[in-house]
């Protein structure tokens, strides 16, 4: 029997719309360490309407933009409203590698009050990624207290 939820997928699977899927797949593969399973070409014979990549234990789809419809890339939209968040073993190594491969630094890697060592980049195709490694395991209450004290520090400084 075919299971309604394929075992190797989590509930949420991002589908990234880009201009130029081949370049994007090459970048996600070399810069982020993703692994490509397959790609399907659209009826126009050039654009790629589906591809599936594995990153760590998660999968995501990368597709060409079809600007005549709702599938528009960040380049066409002039930005993105979504950040893809990655937890990895070594945030510094992953971040440095992505930046060396051409990612734009949006936030340098630093230890954050919520218990992550964390940084943020934009990839060459306009998608935003935050990359982190957990360094402290806190209860929701501790987390709340840290957030409060961070906010009041900020208020005093401004």
């Amino acid at each position, binding site marked *: *029997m*075919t*299971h309604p939820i*394929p*075992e*190797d997928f989590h509930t949420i699977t991002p589908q990234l719309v880009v201009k130029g899927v081949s370049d994007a797949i090459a970048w996600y593969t*070399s810069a*982020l*360490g*993703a*692994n490509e*399973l397959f790609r399907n070409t659209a009826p126009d014979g050039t654009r790629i309407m589906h591809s599936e990549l*594995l*990153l*760590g*234990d998660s*999968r995501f789809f990368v597709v060409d933009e079809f600007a005549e419809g709702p599938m528009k890339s960040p380049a066409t939209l002039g930005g993105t409203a979504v950040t893809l968040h*990655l937890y*990895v*073993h*070594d945030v510094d*190594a*992953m971040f440095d*590698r992505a930046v060396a491969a051409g990612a734009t630094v949006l936030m340098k890697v630093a230890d954050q009050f919520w218990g992550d060592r964390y940084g943020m980049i934009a990839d060459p195709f306009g998608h935003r990624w935050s990359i982190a490694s957990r360094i402290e395991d806190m209860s929701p209450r501790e987390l709340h207290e840290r957030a409060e004290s961070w906010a009041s520090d900020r208020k005093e400084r401004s």
Partner: protein
Amino acid sequence: MNTDTSAAAEPAATMTPAVFHVLLALARGKSHGYRVMQDVALVTDGETRLGPGTLYRTIQRMLVDGLIEEREMALHDETSDDRRRHYQLTPKGLTVAKKEARRLATLVDVARQRGLLSKSAKRGLR
């Protein structure tokens, strides 16, 4: 783990049932996808069926994680069919398989001690 090219591709912390099934199937020696699917049906008495999509996503992930490797021995008439590719456990795959088997055995021991595997418990499930 191929540390040279994939900082992100660390072995996943979770082991899906399909990963353990493939490890179990390859513990008998090198095999190809179709035989792995048959083995899963065999060891679970037909209760679990590994479909070709799940099989190849699982195999991809295990290759990336360095648990298995592809054997370069496919005959020319076999290369067109993914299910005819041969795979075998890596030393790391064998270590992971043993560790997971011990972990499961320990849990099953506890389950038995706590009466979950008694005859009455079995009746309760039916």
